[in-house]
Structures are given as C-alpha cells and as structure tokens.
C-alpha cells in the first residue's frame, strides 16, 4: 500500500506547481477561447470562435507551415546533435575547450538566435558578403532568400542552430557515462565501431533522444519569437498568428488568440502521443 504511493508522493511537488499554477492558467485560456471574457464585456459561452478560426483557410496553411518547421528543424537537430556528441566522444580528450564552446548556442536566447541568423543569412548578411567577395555571386539578389521566405529556411536554421548543442549535450552526458565496458564487449564480439554505435550506444541513448526530441519539437511548434522575427509575411506560423491576435489592442479579439493557442496545445498533445506510440514500436527499451 504505502509503497505504491511512493511515486505519487515523489511527483507531488512538481505536480503542485503544474496543476496548481499552470493548469489554473490553462483553464482561463480555455474559457476565453470559448468566448467568455467578462472584463471586456464578452459573456457568452460559444463555439463561434473555434468555428471561425478552424474553418479559415489561412489556419490550415499556418498549421502546415508550423508543423513543417518544427519537424524539419527537430529532425535535423537530432541527427546533427547526435553526430556532434559522438564526434566529441570519439575525438575525446578530457577537459578540452571544445566540450564547453559547443554549448554556447544553448545559452543564446531564441530571439538572439534569430538576430544571428539574420546577421549571417539575410541578403545583406555575412554569408552573401563572403560569397560576393569571393566572386561566387555578383549581387545581393543572387543569394537565395533564406530569411522571410516561405520555405522557412531562416527559421529552421535558427532552430537547428539553437537545438543542435542541446541535443548534443543531452546525448553526450548520457553517452560519456554509458559504461565503456559495454562498447568493449560489443567490439570484442566482433562489432565494428559503426555497429557498436548503432546497436549499443544509439539504443541506450534513445530514451534521452526521444525526450529531447519531444522537448524541441513541442517548443518550436509553440514558440513565436523566431518565426515572428524571421518568418514570411504569409503564411504565418500558428504561434505568430496567436501572438498577433493576442496583441491586438481590440481586446475582444482575445478569444481568437486563445482558440489558436488551444488548437496548438491540442495538436501538440496528439503528436506527442503518436510519437510515443511509434517510438514504443521501434524501441522496447523505454523507461
């Protein structure tokens, strides 16, 4: 009896914060999305706003744009992040500068990351300048437009730049602490380095990678800063749409913002759940 309660007791403090504070906020958002916002005179509960938002054409294009950005950036970040972590491990010497400096982008806030991408990749950025001076391009406009473009390359790169070190750090922490001996055994049994990586190390870091993926995916799906600063005028990423509606000085627009936010949340939950399912199929080693 008492033992069965233990995990719940351990979860209590975190749950207090999440349920006590966070959910109270969420409930208000939900209510507002249903059109109840008495301070500004909206007092009827209605699904009208949902209908309006969800049937809007631009909603769908925004949704797919958001999904595309989050998926692409998260997957690239995962792959490169793991590669980086493994490379550091393989070229390993303890206490080297490299182990610290690669983490720098983690420290950089997303908004600054957007600024950096702008500095480097815009048509007046450092990259086209270098290409121009090397004679590879002859004018600014020859450089492909990566910022504000509707393929979202700038946004994706900003996310990728931010998240690679995050993934690498998480993976490296686990990787460097996985008992070296397991790799030794595998080598000894005739597995080459590549096989050791794919059959031993990768499965062992998979739970962490899985967590990390969810975190960065959910984050990039719901955050507005980067697409706001680097995104095209249309389609707008969903969070940007929500943000713009939220800041609409006409407060009766608040329910629209909340509808978009609730949709974002709902879609995220579905995706995370689906991901959980599919992950369980691939790996049986889930905590």
């Amino acid at each position, binding site marked *: 009896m008492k033992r069965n309660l233990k995990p719940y007791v351990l979860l209590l403090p975190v749950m207090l914060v999440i349920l006590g504070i966070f959910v109270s906020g969420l409930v208000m958002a939900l209510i507002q999305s249903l059109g109840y916002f008495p*301070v*500004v005179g909206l007092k009827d509960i209605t699904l009208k706003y949902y209908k309006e938002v969800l049937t809007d054409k*631009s909603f769908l294009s925004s949704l797919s744009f958001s999904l595309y950005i989050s998926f692409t950036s998260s997957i690239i970040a995962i792959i490169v992040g793991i590669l980086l972590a493994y490379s550091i491990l393989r070229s390993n010497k303890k206490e080297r500068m490299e182990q610290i400096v690669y983490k720098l982008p983690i420290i950089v806030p997303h908004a600054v990351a957007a600024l950096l991408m*702008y500095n480097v990749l*815009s*048509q*007046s950025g450092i990259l086209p300048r270098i290409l121009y001076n090397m004679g590879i391009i002859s004018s*600014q*406009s020859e450089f492909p*437009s990566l910022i*504000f*473009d*509707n393929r979202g390359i700038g946004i994706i790169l900003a996310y990728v730049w931010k998240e690679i070190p995050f993934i690498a750090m998480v993976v490296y922490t686990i990787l460097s602490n996985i008992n070296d001996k397991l790799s030794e055994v595998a080598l000894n049994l005739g597995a080459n380095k590549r096989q050791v990586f794919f059959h031993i190390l990768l499965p062992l870091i998979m739970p962490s990678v899985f967590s990390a993926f969810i975190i960065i995916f959910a984050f990039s799906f719901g955050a507005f800063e980067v697409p*706001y*600063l680097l*995104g*095209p*005028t*249309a389609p707008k990423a969903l969070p940007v749409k929500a943000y*713009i509606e*939220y*800041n*609409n*000085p*006409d*407060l009766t627009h608040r329910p629209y913002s909340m509808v978009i936010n609730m949709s974002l949340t709902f879609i995220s939950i579905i995706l995370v759940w689906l991901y959980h399912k599919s992950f369980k199929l691939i790996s049986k080693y889930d905590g």
Partner: protein
Amino acid sequence: ACGNQQTKQQASVLEKDWETILKEAKGTKVNFYGWGGSQMTNSWIDNYLAKRLKEEYDITLNRVGMDIDSILNIMLNEKQMEVKEGTIDVVWINGENFFTAKENDLLFGPFTDKLPNFNKYIDKDSVEVKYDFGFQVEGYEAPYGKAQFVMIHDKARVDKVPVNHEELLQFVKNNPGEFTYPAPPDFTGSAFVRNIIYDIVGYEQFLDMEPKKEVVEEAIKPAIDYFKQLKPYLWKEGKTYPATIAQLDNMFADKEVVMTMSYNPNHVVSKKQTGEFPETASSFVFDKGTIGNTHFLAIPHNAPNKAGALAVINFILSVEAQASKYDPNNWGDLPVLDNDKLNEEEKEVFSKIKIGEGAIRQDVLLEHRLPEMPANLIPIIEEIWMENIPAKGE
C-alpha cells in the same frame, strides 16, 4: 462599493490644489512604463528626466521598459482582480491602446486640467490634443511628443526623391528590388499603407467613416490596386515583407534597400549619430503630406502614486523638458507646446536647438501634416492589406 471608494480616492487627488500635490509627490517614487527599445529615448529619460525630477521635486523616476501590450495586460488583469494599488504610475500610450484602456476603464482622469503647464502651454482646442487617432482624449492623457511619418532615403543612391505615389511607383519600377515597406500590423508599415491611401484617395472621408469592412474596402480599392501594381518591383518581388521596421532599417543600413521610413521625423538623425545610417541618409515627405500623430502620457486608474504621476507629467510639459527632448542629441522628439503660448525667451530656447543634418524643419513638417485615421479603421485596413497583397499572385 469598491467603485465608489475608487472614485472617492481619485477625486481626492484631483480636489487638492497643486501645491499640496507637489508636497505629496516629494520624496516618492514614480513608475514610468513605456517602450524601451530606443537607447536614445532611454538615455533621455534616465539621464535627463530622472535627474531633473530628483533635483526639482525629489521624485525618483523608475523607468520600466515594457511593451504597451504587456502594460495593458497588467492593467487589465489588475482591473479584473480589483487591485486598488497597482504597479504603474505613468504610461506612455496612444492610439488604439489608449482607446482600449479608456474603454475598459483602465485610466485615471480626467486629469490634464490639473496640470499648470498643460493649462499654460498647450493648445487645448487643437485636434491633436483633443483627439488621439480619432478618439476623444477627454483629459485622460496628456501630450508627450509629436511624431510624423517621413520617408528616408540615401542621397548617395537616390538622385530624385519621389514626392507622391505615382513617382514612387515609377521610382520602384526603375529600381526593382530596392524598395519595400514593413508588413502591417507593424506600426510604421501600417502608417505607410495609410499614407499611400491618403495620397491616392484623400483623407477627409475616413475621419468619420463607419468601421465596416465593406465600406473601407470600397473606399481604399484604388490604393489596393496600387499596391498590387507596386508589388512585383518590390524587394523579393513583394513575396515577403520585413516583419518590423527594425528589419527595414537594418536592410537600409546594410544597403540592401535604398529607402526606409519612420514615424519619428528625427529618426534619421539619431541613426546617423549612432552611426548605423550613412551620412548621406536624409528624410523627405510627400507633397500632399504625411500622417502625424501625438503620443501621450496617461495614468492608470489604480496608480499607487497619482500625485507623483501628475508632477512628472507636468514637468514633462515644461519648456525645459520639451526643449531637451527636442534636441536631436538627446532624442529629437517634436515638442507639443503651442508656439503661440510661448514668450520670446521660451521661443528662443527652441530656436537655439540645432536640428540635425537630414531632418526636416519643424515648420515644413507642420505644413505637411495630415491627421491620423480613427483607430478602429486601422485593423480593418491591415486585414484588407493582408488578404490582398502578400497572399495573392503567388
């Protein structure tokens, strides 16, 4: 019961005479909330205003750089919870945000008549003091400074500036990819769109237009057609637009485009001072004029230190403060005082200030000043623009 008490309290400050208010304000702290994205503005408030207030009234000014959206949210939530002692004493505000705040009873007032400097220097009957984006001010905010929309170009790269929409179109056609404007709802981009509308269909009809989409759409149709014409020659063929004026400014600074724009006529000077803009950058306005507006200071209904707030706002309306603010070395914001109400000595103070290279003289600006559109039309125009311009023609 609560409401009653509040009105009583409000009344109580406003009932006192100015001397008492100043006495009460002495030694207090005033929380001044407003946009904090300009280093020059911040420096003016921190270095000049705060210092002078301390010397003059022993008031500690606490500048909090915060977006107006957040400020409104704080006020709104405090209202919702009926917080009597709020956090904000003075808010830098105007336009739709003022309208929203006033509509939702978030503001304290009317208070402007209580301010000696307001009574002494301000032309109370001028449209720009009585109305803010078409909304009645009714004493709930006091003017802070004036702004006017200007275009900025690089003399080194533009020989002849376009002075109306047709010339602009011609210019853009001749220089494809070198011009663009921020996408509404960016504040400046939105102003540019309105300015073009004014240039094409005139401004008078909007001042009392019904805020209905069909009506507005009908009225601005020629302008929308114009934007469609313009689009293919814009930067990136008009497929996308900078999201903020900041990006356009940076593109201009990096020589990616040849023009930018600003709602602050002295913007070009300060940008040149910081070294961001080239020395050859210069402002210009359309012949038919550009939109001007006034920015204001208001006091939240639950401001904890209303006396202090009044004292601060009154000081800002002084000749000394307005002149210091007007100096492009400090900020370069246009004064709100009525020239006719100043004595010679006071006029002298203003005329001694050298406006910077590339800026337009104040009298020229005032000649070309057009009133802002009522705020409730603006979101409609932005929506129409959004629906017609960026998405179409892909």
